[in-house]
Protein backbone atom coordinates (compact mmCIF):
# COMPACT_ATOMS: atom_id res chain seq x y z
CA UNK A 1 0.00 0.00 0.00
CA UNK A 2 1.64 3.17 -1.16
CA UNK A 3 1.05 6.78 -0.36
CA UNK A 4 -2.45 7.87 -1.19
CA UNK A 5 -3.94 11.32 -1.41
CA UNK A 6 -7.67 11.83 -1.69
CA UNK A 7 -9.48 15.07 -2.26
CA UNK A 8 -12.80 16.35 -3.38
CA UNK A 9 -12.91 18.07 -6.72
CA UNK A 10 -14.67 21.36 -6.35
CA UNK A 11 -16.76 21.85 -9.42
CA UNK A 12 -16.56 25.20 -11.12
CA UNK A 13 -19.82 27.13 -11.31
CA UNK A 14 -22.25 25.97 -13.92
CA UNK A 15 -20.74 22.54 -14.45
CA UNK A 16 -22.62 19.41 -13.54
CA UNK A 17 -21.00 16.25 -12.21
CA UNK A 18 -21.01 14.44 -15.53
CA UNK A 19 -19.22 17.27 -17.28
CA UNK A 20 -16.62 17.56 -14.53
CA UNK A 21 -15.87 13.85 -14.60
CA UNK A 22 -15.43 13.96 -18.34
CA UNK A 23 -13.13 16.92 -18.05
CA UNK A 24 -10.87 15.31 -15.49
CA UNK A 25 -10.78 11.93 -17.16
CA UNK A 26 -9.82 13.42 -20.49
CA UNK A 27 -7.10 15.30 -18.65
CA UNK A 28 -5.87 12.07 -17.02
CA UNK A 29 -5.95 10.20 -20.29
CA UNK A 30 -3.96 12.93 -21.97
CA UNK A 31 -1.21 12.30 -19.44
CA UNK A 32 -0.96 8.78 -20.82
CA UNK A 33 -2.81 6.90 -18.12
CA UNK A 34 -4.47 3.62 -19.05
CA UNK A 35 -7.89 2.54 -17.86
CA UNK A 36 -7.62 -0.32 -15.39
CA UNK A 37 -11.06 -1.39 -14.31
CA UNK A 38 -13.52 0.13 -11.93
CA UNK A 39 -13.38 0.78 -8.24
CA UNK A 40 -15.82 1.27 -5.45
CA UNK A 41 -15.57 2.49 -1.90
CA UNK A 42 -18.49 2.16 0.47
CA UNK A 43 -18.84 3.63 3.89
CA UNK A 44 -21.49 2.91 6.46
CA UNK A 45 -21.66 4.79 9.72
CA UNK A 46 -22.86 3.43 13.04
CA UNK A 47 -23.63 5.10 16.32
CA UNK A 48 -24.77 4.06 19.74
CA UNK A 49 -27.89 6.07 20.51
CA UNK A 50 -27.91 5.07 24.18
CA UNK A 51 -24.29 5.83 24.87
CA UNK A 52 -23.94 9.62 24.70
CA UNK A 53 -20.17 9.84 24.61
CA UNK A 54 -19.65 7.10 22.07
CA UNK A 55 -17.84 8.10 18.92
CA UNK A 56 -19.17 7.45 15.47
CA UNK A 57 -17.95 4.23 13.87
CA UNK A 58 -17.34 4.07 10.15
CA UNK A 59 -17.25 0.77 8.37
CA UNK A 60 -15.48 1.02 5.04
CA UNK A 61 -15.27 -1.33 2.13
CA UNK A 62 -12.75 -0.69 -0.63
CA UNK A 63 -12.66 -2.75 -3.84
CA UNK A 64 -8.88 -2.41 -3.81
CA UNK A 65 -8.91 -4.74 -0.78
CA UNK A 66 -11.80 -7.07 -1.60
CA UNK A 67 -11.28 -9.41 1.36
CA UNK A 68 -10.87 -6.70 3.98
CA UNK A 69 -13.09 -4.32 5.87
CA UNK A 70 -11.91 -1.24 7.66
CA UNK A 71 -13.37 -0.04 10.91
CA UNK A 72 -12.56 3.51 11.90
CA UNK A 73 -13.75 5.45 14.91
CA UNK A 74 -13.90 9.16 14.46
CA UNK A 75 -10.77 10.37 16.24
CA UNK A 76 -10.37 6.89 17.58
CA UNK A 77 -9.01 3.51 16.83
CA UNK A 78 -8.61 1.90 13.48
CA UNK A 79 -8.78 -1.78 12.63
CA UNK A 80 -8.43 -3.87 9.50
CA UNK A 81 -10.61 -6.95 9.62
CA UNK A 82 -11.98 -9.66 7.38
CA UNK A 83 -15.40 -9.70 5.76
CA UNK A 84 -17.15 -10.96 8.88
CA UNK A 85 -17.06 -7.54 10.49
CA UNK A 86 -20.51 -6.55 9.30
CA UNK A 87 -21.95 -9.78 10.68
CA UNK A 88 -20.20 -9.00 13.94
CA UNK A 89 -21.65 -5.52 14.08
CA UNK A 90 -25.11 -6.82 13.34
CA UNK A 91 -24.79 -8.93 16.49
CA UNK A 92 -24.25 -5.73 18.47
CA UNK A 93 -27.51 -4.34 17.10
CA UNK A 94 -28.85 -3.78 20.59
CA UNK A 95 -26.24 -1.07 21.15
CA UNK A 96 -24.78 -0.11 17.79
CA UNK A 97 -27.13 0.87 15.03
CA UNK A 98 -26.50 2.09 11.52
CA UNK A 99 -26.99 5.82 11.22
CA UNK A 100 -29.92 6.94 9.14
CA UNK A 101 -28.64 7.98 5.75
CA UNK A 102 -25.21 6.93 6.92
CA UNK A 103 -24.45 4.98 3.78
CA UNK A 104 -22.33 6.79 1.28
CA UNK A 105 -20.35 5.41 -1.59
CA UNK A 106 -17.94 6.36 -4.27
CA UNK A 107 -17.69 4.59 -7.62
CA UNK A 108 -15.72 5.22 -10.74
CA UNK A 109 -12.87 4.48 -13.05
CA UNK A 110 -9.33 3.44 -12.14
CA UNK A 111 -6.38 4.60 -14.20
CA UNK A 112 -2.78 3.46 -14.13
CA UNK A 113 0.18 5.56 -15.15
CA UNK A 114 3.56 4.07 -14.38
CA UNK A 115 3.33 3.23 -10.72
CA UNK A 116 0.64 5.79 -10.11
CA UNK A 117 -2.93 4.78 -9.55
CA UNK A 118 -5.54 7.44 -10.25
CA UNK A 119 -9.16 6.96 -9.29
CA UNK A 120 -11.94 9.28 -10.28
CA UNK A 121 -15.17 8.61 -8.47
CA UNK A 122 -18.65 9.94 -8.11
CA UNK A 123 -19.66 10.22 -4.49
CA UNK A 124 -23.30 9.47 -3.93
CA UNK A 125 -25.67 9.10 -1.03
CA UNK A 126 -28.42 6.70 -1.94
CA UNK A 127 -29.12 7.27 -5.60
CA UNK A 128 -28.16 10.93 -5.84
CA UNK A 129 -24.67 12.02 -6.83
CA UNK A 130 -23.18 14.57 -4.44
CA UNK A 131 -19.65 15.19 -5.56
CA UNK A 132 -16.48 14.01 -7.22
CA UNK A 133 -13.49 12.40 -5.56
CA UNK A 134 -9.98 12.29 -6.92
CA UNK A 135 -7.60 9.72 -5.48
CA UNK A 136 -3.93 9.49 -6.32
CA UNK A 137 -1.80 6.61 -5.08
CA UNK A 138 1.91 6.16 -5.57
CA UNK A 139 2.51 2.52 -4.81
CA UNK A 140 6.29 2.01 -4.57
CA UNK A 141 6.88 4.57 -1.84
CA UNK A 142 5.65 4.21 1.71
CA UNK A 143 6.74 7.56 3.11
CA UNK A 144 4.46 10.44 2.23
CA UNK A 145 7.06 13.13 2.74
CA UNK A 146 9.54 11.50 0.38
CA UNK A 147 7.33 11.23 -2.63
CA UNK A 148 5.26 14.34 -2.06
CA UNK A 149 7.26 16.19 -4.70
CA UNK A 150 6.26 13.66 -7.32
CA UNK A 151 2.69 13.45 -6.11
CA UNK A 152 2.17 17.18 -6.12
CA UNK A 153 3.60 17.37 -9.61
CA UNK A 154 1.13 14.73 -10.72
CA UNK A 155 -1.73 16.43 -8.89
CA UNK A 156 -0.86 19.73 -10.54
CA UNK A 157 -1.27 18.14 -13.91
CA UNK A 158 -4.58 16.47 -13.01
CA UNK A 159 -6.50 18.95 -10.90
CA UNK A 160 -4.49 22.07 -11.55
CA UNK A 161 -4.83 24.79 -8.97
CA UNK A 162 -6.96 22.64 -6.69
CA UNK A 163 -3.84 20.69 -5.82
CA UNK A 164 -2.61 21.40 -2.30
CA UNK A 165 0.43 23.69 -2.19
CA UNK A 166 2.28 21.64 0.41
CA UNK A 167 2.12 18.26 2.08
CA UNK A 168 -1.32 18.06 3.74
CA UNK A 169 -1.16 17.44 7.46
CA UNK A 170 -3.40 14.40 7.26
CA UNK A 171 -0.78 12.58 5.18
CA UNK A 172 1.88 12.72 7.87
CA UNK A 173 0.26 11.94 11.15
CA UNK A 174 3.23 11.15 13.33
CA UNK A 175 6.41 12.55 11.93
CA UNK A 176 7.83 10.34 9.25
CA UNK A 177 5.88 7.22 10.00
CA UNK A 178 5.23 4.79 7.19
CA UNK A 179 2.06 5.28 5.27
CA UNK A 180 -0.76 2.92 6.21
CA UNK A 181 -4.25 2.10 4.97
CA UNK A 182 -5.53 3.89 8.05
CA UNK A 183 -4.55 7.23 6.55
CA UNK A 184 -6.34 6.40 3.30
CA UNK A 185 -9.50 5.48 5.13
CA UNK A 186 -9.28 8.56 7.32
CA UNK A 187 -9.08 10.71 4.22
CA UNK A 188 -12.11 8.97 2.78
CA UNK A 189 -14.11 9.50 5.95
CA UNK A 190 -13.05 13.13 6.08
CA UNK A 191 -14.06 13.68 2.50
CA UNK A 192 -17.38 11.90 2.95
CA UNK A 193 -18.09 14.01 6.02
CA UNK A 194 -17.27 17.21 4.14
CA UNK A 195 -19.52 16.23 1.27
CA UNK A 196 -22.34 15.40 3.65
CA UNK A 197 -21.94 18.74 5.38
CA UNK A 198 -21.96 20.77 2.19
CA UNK A 199 -25.02 18.87 1.03
CA UNK A 200 -26.80 19.70 4.28
CA UNK A 201 -25.66 23.33 4.03
CA UNK A 202 -27.21 23.68 0.64
Amino acid sequence: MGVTYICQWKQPEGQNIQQSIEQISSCVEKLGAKKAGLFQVECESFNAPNAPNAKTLHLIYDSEFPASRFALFEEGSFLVTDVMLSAFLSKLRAVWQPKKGGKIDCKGQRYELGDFLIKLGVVSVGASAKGISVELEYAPCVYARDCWGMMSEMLQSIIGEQAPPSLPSNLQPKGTERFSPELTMQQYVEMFNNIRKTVVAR
Partner: protein
Amino acid sequence: MSDVMAQAKLNMNFLSQAITGTQQLRSTVTNVFNLLCEGVKPDEEEDGKGDDAETAVTVGKDGKKFLQRFQEYLEAVNKDYNEVEKMCNNMTSMTDLPVLGPSGALSLDSIADKNSTYRDAVLTYQWNNRLHEYAQIATSLMLTNQIKRSQLQAGAGAKRRRAAPPKFTNLPSQTVDNTLQTLSRQLSDTTMKILQASGDTRIVHLAVGRVFVVIIVLRSLTIEKVLVKGLDENIILENNTVDLFSDSQYLCMQKITDHAMSAVLQYSTYQASPPEFPLKYLLYWLQSYKSLFTDACTVCGKHLDNGLPPLWRDFKIPVPCHDSCRA
Protein backbone atom coordinates in the same frame (compact mmCIF):
# COMPACT_ATOMS: atom_id res chain seq x y z
CA MET B 1 8.57 -39.81 -38.71
CA SER B 2 8.13 -41.24 -42.18
CA ASP B 3 11.70 -40.49 -43.13
CA VAL B 4 12.88 -42.43 -40.13
CA MET B 5 10.81 -45.38 -41.27
CA ALA B 6 12.17 -45.07 -44.82
CA GLN B 7 15.66 -44.93 -43.48
CA ALA B 8 15.06 -47.98 -41.36
CA LYS B 9 13.77 -49.84 -44.42
CA LEU B 10 16.82 -48.85 -46.40
CA ASN B 11 19.01 -50.05 -43.57
CA MET B 12 17.19 -53.34 -43.50
CA ASN B 13 17.95 -53.72 -47.19
CA PHE B 14 21.59 -53.01 -46.65
CA LEU B 15 21.68 -55.38 -43.76
CA SER B 16 20.26 -58.29 -45.70
CA GLN B 17 22.60 -57.57 -48.59
CA ALA B 18 25.50 -57.45 -46.22
CA ILE B 19 24.49 -60.76 -44.69
CA THR B 20 24.34 -62.38 -48.11
CA GLY B 21 27.69 -60.83 -48.90
CA THR B 22 29.19 -62.18 -45.73
CA GLN B 23 27.85 -65.64 -46.46
CA GLN B 24 29.36 -65.43 -49.93
CA LEU B 25 32.67 -64.39 -48.43
CA ARG B 26 32.52 -67.25 -46.01
CA SER B 27 31.93 -69.83 -48.71
CA THR B 28 34.79 -68.52 -50.83
CA VAL B 29 37.11 -68.53 -47.84
CA THR B 30 36.03 -72.09 -47.07
CA ASN B 31 36.92 -72.97 -50.66
CA VAL B 32 40.38 -71.58 -50.13
CA PHE B 33 40.89 -73.56 -46.98
CA ASN B 34 39.57 -76.70 -48.59
CA LEU B 35 42.01 -76.25 -51.42
CA LEU B 36 44.85 -75.79 -48.98
CA CYS B 37 43.79 -78.86 -47.02
CA GLU B 38 43.77 -81.05 -50.05
CA GLY B 39 47.22 -79.86 -50.86
CA VAL B 40 48.92 -80.41 -54.20
CA LYS B 41 47.21 -83.21 -56.09
CA PRO B 42 48.83 -84.88 -58.96
CA ASP B 43 47.24 -84.19 -62.26
CA GLU B 44 44.65 -86.65 -63.18
CA GLU B 45 46.17 -87.51 -66.50
CA GLU B 46 49.52 -88.32 -64.81
CA ASP B 47 49.75 -91.47 -62.84
CA GLY B 48 52.21 -90.26 -60.31
CA LYS B 49 54.20 -93.42 -60.18
CA GLY B 50 57.30 -92.11 -61.86
CA ASP B 51 60.69 -91.67 -60.21
CA ASP B 52 61.69 -88.87 -57.98
CA ALA B 53 62.88 -86.58 -60.66
CA GLU B 54 59.78 -87.17 -62.60
CA THR B 55 57.75 -86.54 -59.56
CA ALA B 56 59.55 -83.31 -59.04
CA VAL B 57 58.68 -82.32 -62.54
CA THR B 58 55.08 -83.32 -62.04
CA VAL B 59 55.06 -81.52 -58.79
CA GLY B 60 56.31 -78.49 -60.51
CA LYS B 61 53.66 -78.85 -63.10
CA ASP B 62 50.96 -79.68 -60.56
CA GLY B 63 52.17 -76.89 -58.31
CA LYS B 64 51.73 -74.41 -61.11
CA LYS B 65 48.18 -75.59 -61.57
CA PHE B 66 47.57 -75.50 -57.85
CA LEU B 67 48.92 -72.01 -57.50
CA GLN B 68 46.77 -70.89 -60.37
CA ARG B 69 43.66 -72.25 -58.60
CA PHE B 70 44.77 -70.82 -55.33
CA GLN B 71 45.15 -67.43 -56.92
CA GLU B 72 41.71 -67.73 -58.49
CA TYR B 73 40.16 -68.50 -55.14
CA LEU B 74 41.97 -65.75 -53.40
CA GLU B 75 40.78 -63.30 -56.00
CA ALA B 76 37.23 -64.44 -55.35
CA VAL B 77 37.79 -63.91 -51.66
CA ASN B 78 39.20 -60.49 -52.33
CA LYS B 79 36.23 -59.58 -54.47
CA ASP B 80 33.74 -60.75 -51.86
CA TYR B 81 35.66 -59.01 -49.16
CA ASN B 82 35.54 -55.76 -51.08
CA GLU B 83 31.83 -56.26 -51.55
CA VAL B 84 31.28 -56.77 -47.83
CA GLU B 85 33.42 -53.78 -47.00
CA LYS B 86 31.34 -51.68 -49.36
CA MET B 87 28.22 -52.89 -47.59
CA CYS B 88 29.74 -52.02 -44.25
CA ASN B 89 30.51 -48.53 -45.47
CA ASN B 90 26.91 -48.17 -46.52
CA MET B 91 25.87 -49.40 -43.13
CA THR B 92 27.65 -46.59 -41.31
CA SER B 93 24.66 -44.43 -42.10
CA MET B 94 22.79 -46.66 -39.72
CA THR B 95 24.60 -45.32 -36.70
CA ASP B 96 22.69 -42.15 -37.44
CA LEU B 97 19.68 -43.83 -35.94
CA PRO B 98 18.86 -42.19 -32.65
CA VAL B 99 21.05 -43.51 -29.92
CA LEU B 100 18.55 -43.66 -27.19
CA GLY B 101 20.30 -45.85 -24.73
CA PRO B 102 18.02 -48.08 -22.75
CA SER B 103 14.99 -46.20 -24.02
CA GLY B 104 15.71 -47.74 -27.40
CA ALA B 105 14.34 -50.92 -25.91
CA LEU B 106 10.97 -49.20 -25.84
CA SER B 107 10.61 -49.84 -29.55
CA LEU B 108 10.70 -53.55 -28.81
CA ASP B 109 7.72 -53.36 -26.53
CA SER B 110 4.67 -54.38 -28.48
CA ILE B 111 2.29 -52.80 -25.99
CA ALA B 112 4.12 -49.54 -26.43
CA ASP B 113 2.77 -49.39 -29.96
CA LYS B 114 -0.41 -48.05 -28.44
CA ASN B 115 1.25 -45.27 -26.57
CA SER B 116 3.70 -43.28 -28.52
CA THR B 117 6.49 -43.09 -25.95
CA TYR B 118 9.13 -44.43 -28.26
CA ARG B 119 8.01 -42.26 -31.12
CA ASP B 120 8.03 -39.20 -28.87
CA ALA B 121 11.42 -40.11 -27.54
CA VAL B 122 12.81 -40.36 -31.05
CA LEU B 123 11.26 -37.05 -32.02
CA THR B 124 12.58 -35.38 -28.92
CA TYR B 125 15.97 -36.75 -29.61
CA GLN B 126 15.88 -35.41 -33.12
CA TRP B 127 14.85 -31.97 -32.00
CA ASN B 128 17.52 -32.06 -29.37
CA ASN B 129 20.07 -32.92 -32.01
CA ARG B 130 18.86 -30.11 -34.17
CA LEU B 131 19.03 -27.69 -31.26
CA HIS B 132 22.52 -28.82 -30.54
CA GLU B 133 23.48 -28.30 -34.15
CA TYR B 134 22.02 -24.80 -34.26
CA ALA B 135 23.69 -23.94 -30.99
CA GLN B 136 26.98 -25.04 -32.37
CA ILE B 137 26.50 -22.96 -35.49
CA ALA B 138 25.47 -20.00 -33.38
CA THR B 139 28.52 -20.39 -31.16
CA SER B 140 30.86 -20.54 -34.06
CA LEU B 141 29.23 -17.47 -35.59
CA MET B 142 29.44 -15.59 -32.35
CA LEU B 143 33.01 -16.55 -31.78
CA THR B 144 33.93 -14.95 -35.07
CA ASN B 145 32.15 -11.72 -34.12
CA GLN B 146 33.09 -11.29 -30.48
CA ILE B 147 31.68 -8.29 -28.65
CA LYS B 148 34.19 -6.52 -26.52
CA ARG B 149 32.90 -5.40 -23.22
CA SER B 150 35.52 -2.83 -22.42
CA GLN B 151 37.26 -0.41 -24.71
CA LEU B 152 40.49 -0.89 -22.85
CA GLN B 153 41.01 -4.24 -24.44
CA ALA B 154 40.24 -3.14 -27.94
CA GLY B 155 43.22 -0.83 -28.17
CA ALA B 156 45.61 -2.92 -26.20
CA GLY B 157 46.57 -4.99 -29.18
CA ALA B 158 49.01 -7.79 -28.62
CA LYS B 159 49.59 -6.90 -25.02
CA ARG B 160 45.92 -7.20 -24.05
CA ARG B 161 45.03 -9.72 -21.48
CA ARG B 162 42.04 -11.87 -21.44
CA ALA B 163 38.87 -10.29 -20.08
CA ALA B 164 38.95 -10.05 -16.32
CA PRO B 165 39.26 -13.61 -15.14
CA PRO B 166 36.44 -14.90 -12.96
CA LYS B 167 37.13 -13.57 -9.53
CA PHE B 168 35.33 -16.10 -7.47
CA THR B 169 38.55 -17.99 -7.39
CA ASN B 170 38.93 -19.31 -3.90
CA LEU B 171 38.73 -16.31 -1.68
CA PRO B 172 38.56 -17.61 1.85
CA SER B 173 35.14 -17.31 3.34
CA GLN B 174 36.46 -15.23 6.20
CA THR B 175 37.89 -12.65 3.82
CA VAL B 176 34.57 -12.33 2.03
CA ASP B 177 32.72 -11.82 5.28
CA ASN B 178 35.22 -9.22 6.42
CA THR B 179 35.02 -7.39 3.13
CA LEU B 180 31.24 -7.33 3.30
CA GLN B 181 31.37 -5.98 6.84
CA THR B 182 33.80 -3.24 5.91
CA LEU B 183 31.67 -2.30 2.93
CA SER B 184 28.51 -2.18 4.98
CA ARG B 185 30.21 0.16 7.46
CA GLN B 186 31.28 2.50 4.70
CA LEU B 187 27.77 2.96 3.37
CA SER B 188 25.51 5.61 4.82
CA ASP B 189 21.70 5.34 4.87
CA THR B 190 22.05 1.78 3.75
CA THR B 191 21.85 -1.35 5.83
CA MET B 192 23.26 -4.60 4.67
CA LYS B 193 22.75 -8.05 6.04
CA ILE B 194 23.43 -11.54 4.84
CA LEU B 195 20.19 -13.47 4.54
CA GLN B 196 21.55 -16.80 3.60
CA ALA B 197 24.93 -18.31 3.03
CA SER B 198 25.77 -21.70 1.63
CA GLY B 199 29.33 -22.36 0.73
CA ASP B 200 30.65 -19.65 -1.49
CA THR B 201 27.24 -18.26 -2.28
CA ARG B 202 25.69 -15.54 -0.19
CA ILE B 203 22.38 -13.76 -0.49
CA VAL B 204 22.76 -10.19 0.65
CA HIS B 205 19.85 -8.01 1.62
CA LEU B 206 20.43 -4.32 1.17
CA ALA B 207 17.95 -1.68 2.28
CA VAL B 208 18.64 1.60 0.55
CA GLY B 209 17.33 4.50 2.57
CA ARG B 210 13.55 4.54 2.61
CA VAL B 211 13.31 3.70 -1.03
CA PHE B 212 13.79 0.06 -1.82
CA VAL B 213 15.51 -3.16 -0.88
CA VAL B 214 17.98 -5.00 -3.05
CA ILE B 215 18.67 -8.70 -3.06
CA ILE B 216 22.18 -9.41 -4.28
CA VAL B 217 23.39 -12.92 -4.94
CA LEU B 218 27.13 -13.15 -4.48
CA ARG B 219 29.41 -15.97 -5.41
CA SER B 220 32.41 -15.19 -3.30
CA LEU B 221 32.63 -11.51 -4.28
CA THR B 222 31.32 -11.88 -7.80
CA ILE B 223 27.85 -10.48 -8.33
CA GLU B 224 25.53 -13.06 -9.81
CA LYS B 225 22.17 -11.37 -9.60
CA VAL B 226 20.62 -8.15 -8.46
CA LEU B 227 16.94 -7.76 -7.75
CA VAL B 228 15.35 -4.49 -6.66
CA LYS B 229 12.06 -4.55 -4.81
CA GLY B 230 9.76 -2.11 -3.05
CA LEU B 231 9.93 -1.73 0.70
CA ASP B 232 6.56 -3.37 1.27
CA GLU B 233 7.07 -6.35 -0.99
CA ASN B 234 7.64 -9.86 0.24
CA ILE B 235 11.14 -11.14 -0.02
CA ILE B 236 10.82 -14.28 2.00
CA LEU B 237 8.60 -16.94 0.50
CA GLU B 238 6.20 -19.01 2.53
CA ASN B 239 8.64 -21.86 2.79
CA ASN B 240 11.20 -19.51 4.34
CA THR B 241 13.42 -19.29 1.30
CA VAL B 242 14.40 -16.03 -0.31
CA ASP B 243 12.43 -15.11 -3.40
CA LEU B 244 15.16 -14.52 -5.97
CA PHE B 245 13.15 -14.66 -9.12
CA SER B 246 9.84 -12.83 -9.05
CA ASP B 247 10.11 -9.32 -10.34
CA SER B 248 8.92 -6.39 -8.34
CA GLN B 249 5.32 -5.45 -8.95
CA TYR B 250 6.33 -1.83 -9.37
CA LEU B 251 7.36 -0.60 -12.76
CA CYS B 252 10.08 1.68 -11.44
CA MET B 253 11.67 -1.11 -9.39
CA GLN B 254 11.68 -3.37 -12.44
CA LYS B 255 13.46 -0.71 -14.45
CA ILE B 256 15.97 -0.09 -11.69
CA THR B 257 16.65 -3.84 -11.60
CA ASP B 258 17.49 -3.66 -15.30
CA HIS B 259 19.76 -0.68 -14.76
CA ALA B 260 21.41 -2.42 -11.85
CA MET B 261 22.16 -5.50 -13.96
CA SER B 262 23.84 -3.34 -16.57
CA ALA B 263 25.73 -1.59 -13.79
CA VAL B 264 26.96 -4.99 -12.63
CA LEU B 265 28.21 -5.75 -16.13
CA GLN B 266 29.81 -2.35 -16.39
CA TYR B 267 31.63 -2.55 -13.08
CA SER B 268 32.73 -6.15 -13.40
CA THR B 269 34.77 -5.35 -16.51
CA TYR B 270 36.94 -2.84 -14.70
CA GLN B 271 40.49 -3.95 -15.03
CA ALA B 272 43.13 -4.77 -12.52
CA SER B 273 41.09 -3.96 -9.49
CA PRO B 274 40.89 -5.76 -6.19
CA PRO B 275 38.14 -8.37 -6.24
CA GLU B 276 35.76 -6.37 -4.05
CA PHE B 277 35.77 -3.29 -6.29
CA PRO B 278 32.85 -4.21 -8.57
CA LEU B 279 30.69 -4.86 -5.53
CA LYS B 280 31.85 -1.68 -3.86
CA TYR B 281 31.10 0.41 -6.95
CA LEU B 282 27.70 -1.22 -7.28
CA LEU B 283 26.84 -0.56 -3.65
CA TYR B 284 27.79 3.10 -3.95
CA TRP B 285 25.83 3.33 -7.15
CA LEU B 286 22.78 1.76 -5.52
CA GLN B 287 23.17 4.06 -2.57
CA SER B 288 22.69 7.01 -4.88
CA TYR B 289 19.10 5.86 -5.32
CA LYS B 290 18.20 6.86 -1.77
CA SER B 291 16.88 10.11 -3.19
CA LEU B 292 14.86 8.35 -5.90
CA PHE B 293 11.53 9.80 -4.83
CA THR B 294 12.73 13.17 -3.58
CA ASP B 295 15.12 14.42 -6.24
CA ALA B 296 14.05 15.89 -9.53
CA CYS B 297 15.78 15.12 -12.81
CA THR B 298 19.00 17.12 -13.20
CA VAL B 299 18.39 17.54 -16.90
CA CYS B 300 14.75 18.61 -17.21
CA GLY B 301 14.22 19.72 -13.63
CA LYS B 302 10.99 17.76 -13.25
CA HIS B 303 10.07 14.91 -10.96
CA LEU B 304 8.03 12.83 -13.32
CA ASP B 305 8.43 11.53 -16.78
CA ASN B 306 5.50 9.46 -17.99
CA GLY B 307 4.56 8.60 -14.43
CA LEU B 308 8.07 7.49 -13.43
CA PRO B 309 10.63 9.26 -11.25
CA PRO B 310 14.20 9.93 -12.50
CA LEU B 311 15.31 6.33 -12.69
CA TRP B 312 18.70 6.58 -14.32
CA ARG B 313 21.97 7.09 -12.50
CA ASP B 314 25.14 7.41 -14.49
CA PHE B 315 27.74 4.77 -13.68
CA LYS B 316 30.46 7.32 -13.09
CA ILE B 317 28.71 10.29 -11.61
CA PRO B 318 25.43 8.98 -10.19
CA VAL B 319 23.11 11.95 -10.59
CA PRO B 320 19.34 11.45 -11.00
CA CYS B 321 18.10 11.64 -14.53
CA HIS B 322 15.10 10.36 -16.46
CA ASP B 323 15.57 7.49 -18.83
CA SER B 324 14.53 9.70 -21.69
CA CYS B 325 16.64 12.66 -20.55
CA ARG B 326 20.05 11.01 -20.54
CA ALA B 327 22.02 12.22 -23.49
